C-alpha cells in the first residue's frame, strides 16, 4: 500500500508531459500561485499523480493546474496559475 505522502511528487515528474503539451521545457519555469502569490519553479510545486494530475502550490496547497488525459484528448485547467514565465532561449 502506498501512503499519501508517497503519491506526492514534484514538477519534475510532469516535465515530459508539459514538454509535449506546451512544446517547451517548463520544469525551470517560474509559476505564480493564483491563490497566495508565491512564485516557484514548476519543479518545486507539489504534483499528485492519479487518474489525473493535480499540481498544488507548495506554500498554500492551492490547486494550480489540473490535467486529465484520455480518449485522445487532454483537459487542462490552468485557473489556479497567476502567471507562468517562459524563457525565450
Amino acid at each position: 500500500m502506498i501512503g499519501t505522502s508517497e503519491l506526492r511528487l514534484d514538477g519534475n515528474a510532469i516535465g515530459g508531459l508539459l514538454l509535449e503539451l506546451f512544446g517547451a521545457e517548463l520544469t525551470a519555469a517560474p509559476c505564480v500561485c493564483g491563490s497566495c502569490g508565491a512564485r516557484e519553479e514548476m519543479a518545486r510545486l507539489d504534483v499528485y499523480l492519479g487518474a489525473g494530475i493535480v499540481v498544488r502550490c507548495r506554500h498554500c496547497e492551492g490547486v494550480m493546474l489540473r490535467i486529465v488525459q484520455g480518449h485522445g484528448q487532454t483537459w487542462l485547467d490552468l485557473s489556479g496559475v497567476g502567471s507562468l514565465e517562459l524563457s525565450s532561449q
Partner: protein
Amino acid sequence: MTWLAADVAASREETPRVRTLELDVPDWPGHRAGQHLDVRLTAEDGYQAERSYSIASAPGDGVTLTVERLDDGEVSPYLVDEAREGDRVEVRGPIGGYFVWDGDEPEPVLLVGGGSGVVPLAAMARQRARVGSTAPMKLLRSSRTIEEVIYREELDALAGGGFEVVHTLTRSQPPGWTGYSRRIDRELLAEVAWPASESPRVYVCGSTRFVDAAADGLLQAGYDARWIRTERFGATG
C-alpha cells in the same frame, strides 16, 4: 517533441533489482547532467505505458539508464528483467531544466541520494570528471545494504581531487563497516554537508519520504531553500 526509437545496445546487472541499459538513440539531441527521459512501451494489443527515468550517463557519453524494478510496476519489470540487446523501446527527452548541473559553477556541490536516487547524481559526478570541474563535490548516499549500493566501485574510484563519497547503510552493515549506519537525519547532515556560509548547490533525489527528510535537515542546518533542488520519484514505475 516526438518519441524516438531507442535500441538496447548493452545491459548489465548492478544489483539483483537494478539494471543499467545503454541505449542507442540515433536522433538523440544531447542532454545535461541530471535530466531524465520518458520511456514508452507498447504492447501487442496497442496498450501503452510510460514512465520517467533519470539519465545516468554524462552529456556526450551516450544515453544510459539505470532502472530499479518495482514489482507492481508497468515498465520497470520489463526494463530490468526482459529488455536485452537489440530490443527496441521509445523515449522522449531529454526532460528538465531545473534539476541539472553543468559543471561550470565554482560553488561546492552536495549530492544527496537515496537508493536509485543516486542515478542523476552519478551523471553529475561523471560530468564533473568529464569537464575537469574543480568545484568541490560531496556525494552522500543512503542505501539499505552494501549489496544494494549502485555504482559503488565506479563512484568510490572517482573520489579524490575534490570529490568525496559518504555512505550510510540503513538496514545492515558488513563487518568492519566504518561508514554511517542510520537514516539521513539532521545530525548526519550537519556532519557531512558543506557549511552554509559556502552557499553550496544541493541536489537531493530519492523517494518522497527521503527527499523531504533530507531537505528538512538541510533547512535546519541553515541552508537556504533556494539552494536545494529536489527530485522525487514515485512508487509506481
